[in-house]
């Protein structure tokens, strides 16, 4: 496994990039249309941050409404419109594109290709996503991100067709991103057994995108044709089938929850050895976990609608087993990271680095959110307090905001000197870090508690039960803490781009690794 050894040594090397004021020297035209992979990544990251700001603003608005029972200032229609936009913009406009964009930046360096192949397709993917977001914001549909039929065919007013077209555009955009990633992985010249884990992550991501998005595209297309009256595939009143919809949508929908997760994992595998100044605990374990996650992610989707049948057959049981099994590769990733941390001293430079802190926070929330997958998979428990209560948003907010969102932030802080030639402000960064850890932790735990108390999802108003009202009020406070952290984050990025200290040639030196290695060299796991 000579290739493997090479990959392990490569992990610890610094990046080939040098800090530069890329943002400052770009014209608007270059920023929008350049095929330089760094510019495509930067543009997508900036756009995703705008999406995060919008999605967060929508969330704070309806969170304020939910702070107390009764209708405060939002009616059902605007509430559900904001909720739908929040879900769709966060998933399609922020989570998935931002981590893919960071990987666009890291991939050519990791795989030594020097450029992003098929950059034109990456451009098309970006612009289609922008178009989809604009259509969604104009249409303001109220069918939630799961667009369940036949409800989604009977809501939203005369502009709802834009929402269906947006779903179709998202599918095409993500498919193109999958093509780009696969092409670039195949540009790797070495043995596959030595390909960096970033490459394996992008290989998994590409296949997830390419195999799942055609179903999302079909859902968007058939929603449109059903709505126009040309077909009736999903409308049972006209001979269609909601079962067909559920199977088609979730064949995309469950792999889709891994679309942001897999690049975030790949970013963590890329950054962790660089901060620690030593190889990961296990390369092979990382590859196996990526491949297992890829395969299993396509065969677990039924758990999203398992209480729909009164009598469960072997089909549901098979899905239950497979859903339980997908717990294992996710755990292997966490095991690998903790083993990497544990095998030797952690350099002081890593402990002080903001991206490293966010990475540790991300692992914490991956554990907090991921571990409940063990319960969610079980039909008997899911049919009790889990299915469509606040337990589910607790689970996915821990995974999406706690893990993916924080890994995106870690990636942005890490890449900041390479985009601006400057260093961010430490104090603002630390304030952002703690506001997010406390805010997200409070949010996730309160949502778990509300789910356990059977608080239903998607409601603008609720009964004034003691176990609901107090938690909802504090949940709103937690959301504002997260919002404040985001404002500090953006202020830091904006102010430091002009006032930050000049970045040295290597913005991420490893401080005391020599001393650590001298005390106890870390052999590969046996």
């Amino acid at each position, binding site marked *: 496994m000579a290739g493997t050894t090479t990959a392990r040594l490569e992990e610890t090397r610094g990046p080939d990039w040098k800090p530069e004021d890329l943002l400052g020297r770009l014209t608007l035209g270059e920023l929008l249309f350049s095929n330089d992979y760094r510019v495509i990544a930067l543009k997508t990251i900036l756009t995703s941050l705008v999406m995060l700001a919008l999605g967060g603003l929508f969330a704070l608005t309806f969170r304020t409404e939910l702070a107390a029972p009764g209708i405060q200032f939002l009616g*059902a229609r605007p509430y559900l419109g904001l909720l739908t936009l929040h879900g769709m913009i966060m998933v399609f406009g922020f989570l998935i594109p931002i981590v893919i964009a960071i990987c666009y930046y890291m991939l050519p360096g990791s795989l030594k290709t020097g450029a992003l192949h098929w950059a034109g397709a990456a451009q098309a993917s970006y612009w289609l996503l922008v178009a989809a977001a604009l259509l969604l914001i104009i249409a303001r549909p109220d069918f*939630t991100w*799961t667009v*369940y*039929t*036949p*409800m989604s065919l*009977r*809501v939203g007013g005369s502009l709802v067709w834009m929402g269906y077209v947006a779903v179709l555009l998202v599918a095409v955009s993500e498919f193109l991103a999958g093509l780009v990633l696969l092409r670039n992985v195949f540009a790797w010249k070495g043995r596959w057994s030595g390909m960096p884990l970033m490459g394996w992550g992008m290989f998994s991501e590409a296949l997830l995108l390419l195999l799942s998005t055609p179903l999302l595209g079909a859902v968007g297309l058939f929603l449109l044709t059903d709505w126009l009256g040309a077909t009736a595939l999903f409308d*049972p009143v006209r001979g269609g089938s*909601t*079962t067909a919809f559920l199977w088609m949508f979730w064949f995309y929908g469950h792999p889709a929850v891994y679309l942001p997760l897999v690049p975030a994992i790949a970013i963590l595998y890329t950054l962790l050895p660089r901060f620690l100044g030593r190889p990961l605990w*296990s390369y092979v374990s990382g590859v196996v976990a990526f491949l297992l996650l890829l395969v299993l992610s396509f065969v677990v989707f039924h758990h999203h*609608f398992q*209480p*729909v049948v*009164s*009598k*469960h057959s072997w089909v549901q*049981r098979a899905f*239950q*087993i497979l859903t*339980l*099994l997908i*717990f294992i590769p996710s*755990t*292997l990733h*966490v095991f690998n990271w*903790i083993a990497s*941390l*544990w*095998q030797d*001293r*952690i350099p002081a430079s890593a402990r002080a680095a903001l991206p490293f802190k966010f990475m540790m926070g991300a692992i914490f929330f991956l*554990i*907090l959110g991921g*571990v*409940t997958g*063990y*319960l969610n998979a*079980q*039909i*008997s428990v899911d*049919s*009790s*307090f889990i*299915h*469509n209560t606040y337990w589910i948003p607790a689970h996915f907010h821990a995974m999406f905001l706690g893990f993916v969102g924080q890994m995106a932030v870690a990636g942005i802080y890490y890449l900041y000197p390479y985009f601006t030639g400057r260093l961010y402000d430490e104090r603002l960064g630390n304030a952002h870090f703690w506001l997010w850890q406390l805010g997200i932790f409070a949010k996730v735990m309160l949502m778990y508690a509300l789910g356990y108390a*059977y608080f*239903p*999802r*998607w*409601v603008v*108003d*609720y*009964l004034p039960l003691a176990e609901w009202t107090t938690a909802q009020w504090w949940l709103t406070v937690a959301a504002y803490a997260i919002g404040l952290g985001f404002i500090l984050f953006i202020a830091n990025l904006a102010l430091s781009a002009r006032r930050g200290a000049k970045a040295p040639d290597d913005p991420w030196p490893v401080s005391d690794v020599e001393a650590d290695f001298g005390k106890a060299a*870390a*052999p590969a*796991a*046996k």
Partner: protein
Amino acid sequence: MQYALGLSGDAAIMFAITVALGVAGILALAMALAWPKRWRLRYRMEIGFVVLLLGLVIYADVNSSRTYQAYEANLPEPAALSGTKGFDAKRAGFDRAVRVYAFQWGFIFFDESGKASRNAVKVAPGEKVLFNIMSNDVIHGFNIPAAQLTTELEPGGVSSIWIRAPDTPGKYLIQCLNYCGLGHAQMKAWLVVEGAARQEG
């Protein structure tokens, strides 16, 4: 299993396992960051960990399946339920059978005589009640928190659940748990438990 499925007995054990796994993971992370002692893990430890997880997967599957199969064994075959007219609840082992129509946005309950009531259904304390639930418009949910039970309803289909009514008289919430349109938040009903308790035997 006093109230069909729910967080008691085996499910409570599953909850405890989940909490234990989460705490173990977070402790391991905290120790890796804060504890001065370093520890070189071996592959055999990871393999052992995977074996443990596989054991937990098997345990969860067997337990969950046993729980819901025992619960479902009390449900009549779907063919016996078609329309539920003429369905003999007593012969099927239930004290009461209730037909439910879920619609945008409410529930209508029909008792065995065909008498309808909107957004409320009366049962006696401790009764074993069968609900045969239909939706005639969109996908809805049917959740009774006091019974710790949820099902999802596809238009045109019949979903059946049974519960043991609470022993304490009172009003218990029934709610839709699936987004079904603008009035989803208002889609609630009440399980009204009143009258003499069911006589055993």
